[in-house]
């Protein structure tokens, strides 16, 4: 983990108030593993104090591969949606602007463990709700390199929330989409086609990787338990520091006393679903 001041390369607006922020940060890009996150700090403002936690969406070289040589990773990409004061200010960032970036943070998708679990399964199911998609691209690329079969089930409020589809397309065997207003794909929550899919394929074994808002995580965990699949959750929460000291991002986990709460920033952000105690107050509403 490095605490750096980095330059914005691009802050590209996408549909539905989403943005793809690219910053130049070779050291942090090269240290990043799938499922890790970054804390973004808006510099020079004393009214917006805290850094904002965001999944690391992708890491890239400055220029694509030329010839046989693989160029070094230098760019960190963060996919975000305007949801409040901090992200509204982020949307105004221009190329050349500086931001504070603490990254990479968290242990990600358990490195070797998730790969071996994925190999044991028939297929990996990525289940994303809204901006939760941002946590799943790097693991999907990693799994694709390892030759793992993958599917994406992705839901949002409207079709404008379904960003990043082009990135996932080459990595997965199929994409199932859902929108609450029916503007694209299944009308309703993504967990409905997920349940239908699991029902149809009762004889198969899946590793589920889920990131999204609380009700979606809750429903996905219940489906994983019902059909007997292992399930990894990438959790989000408000964070004060990202360093493991403020204890502001703790969630309830299986344990007693001091161990009853664990830090999303340090013990997470990825947890095995059976470890998380599923209480309604576990996550703030967003």
């Amino acid at each position, binding site marked *: 983990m490095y605490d750096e001041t980095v330059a914005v390369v691009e802050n590209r607006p996408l549909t539905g108030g989403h943005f793809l922020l690219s910053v130049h940060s070779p050291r942090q890009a090269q240290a990043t593993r799938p499922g890790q996150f970054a804390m973004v*700090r808006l510099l020079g403002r004393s009214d*917006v104090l805290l850094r904002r936690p965001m999944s690391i969406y992708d890491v890239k070289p400055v220029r694509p591969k030329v010839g046989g040589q693989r160029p070094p990773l230098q760019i960190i990409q963060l996919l975000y949606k305007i949801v409040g004061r901090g992200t509204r200010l982020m949307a105004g960032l221009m190329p050349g602007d500086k931001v504070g970036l603490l990254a990479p943070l968290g242990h990600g998708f358990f490195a070797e463990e998730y790969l071996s679990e994925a190999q044991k399964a028939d297929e990996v199911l990525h289940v994303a709700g809204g901006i939760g998609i941002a946590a799943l691209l790097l693991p999907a690329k990693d799994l694709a390199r390892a030759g793992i079969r993958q599917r994406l089930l992705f839901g949002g409020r409207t079709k404008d929330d379904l960003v990043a589809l082009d990135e996932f397309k080459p990595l997965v065997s199929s994409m199932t989409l859902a929108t609450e207003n029916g503007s694209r794909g299944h009308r309703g929550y993504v967990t409905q086609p997920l349940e239908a899919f699991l029902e149809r394929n009762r004889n198969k074994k899946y590793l589920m990787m889920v990131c999204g808002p609380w009700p979606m995580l809750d429903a996905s965990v219940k489906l994983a338990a019902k059909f007997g699949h292992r399930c990894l959750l990438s959790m989000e929460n408000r964070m004060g520091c990202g360093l493991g000291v403020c204890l502001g991002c*703790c969630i309830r986990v299986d344990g*007693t006393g001091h161990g009853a709460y664990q830090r999303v920033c340090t013990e997470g952000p990825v947890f095995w679903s059976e470890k998380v105690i599923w209480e309604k107050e576990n996550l703030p509403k967003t």
Partner: protein
Amino acid sequence: MAKVKSQKSKAENRKSKVETQSPIRVNPKSKITNPKSPKSSVKSADSGFVPRVDTLIAGVHFDNPVLTASGTFGYGREFAHLIDLNLLGGIVVKGISAEPMPGNRPPRIYETESGMLNAIGLQNVGARKFLDEKLPFLRTLSTRCVVNVFGYSTEDYVRAIEILNAGEGIDAYELNISCPNTRCGGMVYGNDPKLTEEVVAAAKRAARFPLFVKLSPNVTDITVLARAAEAAGADALTMVNTFVGMAIDIETRTPRVSNVTAGLSGPAIKPVALRMVYQVARAVKIPIVGIGGIATAEDALEYIIAGARAVQVGTANFYAPETSLRVVEGIREFCRRKLTHLSDLVGSLRVPNGPGS
């Protein structure tokens, strides 16, 4: 990137401290560098004035007046790869209770304008685990280690202190009688002069190390509580803890933090905390450690001029871990520019034609 600078000096200090044990608490280092020395003592011809920024509080010598506040710096190690911990004046560790505490239900924090609300609920590893797992690392630093202690009853406080007394490498205790976020917790003590006296006196009797008492700002007249703590034997005062506040999500009509109310910290509270330090500095004789919204050297200097002999950096550690070291550098630079030692700035407020509280 952890830098280990002056391990030796601390090791030597420890040795002499063991020899002199309590009740003598004067750190041998303080004899070499007495901050009360005359202004003109150190001047070099070429580079000019070399200011002294060390400070002495309750017999504990700090190389510089900047400490990291309890609950914002973990147990020190979490920051070891980000800054050189040996350049800090001191580290005040996360509040420790006799037994481990799970803390409050989430959500626990919320950002507000120029500040943040927190209701962590004093989640901590407990005194024994602190001694076994956290203190050994802190011992390797030349930085002073202050252990924040809290409990639900006078007996709890005393029990925690009795366990911690066995710790080698603790320089002082900071008695937390001001946490606003625990059920019938610390703040009950901090609001009542009688209870303050009771718990401070009991803690003082039990403590092997000097006792700082951290005051709550959520009182009508903080000088009353400050005097009560002084009368009961407090060696120094840390002031202040967070201000009780709240925030509401109007869409769901629910509180933003599960505890409903939470402690406000950050730049938003600085003017109020500063006023309290000023008032108390005129009401008590024991040293004051100022805290509340410090993010720059200028902030820290305001507290020092108001009467604080040291300061603590809190919330800023969350978003800018290098803040404390910048504050130290800025204080040194200011003293150089003003040709003054830190000790001459303490309580040096000038009030032209004014009543001054």
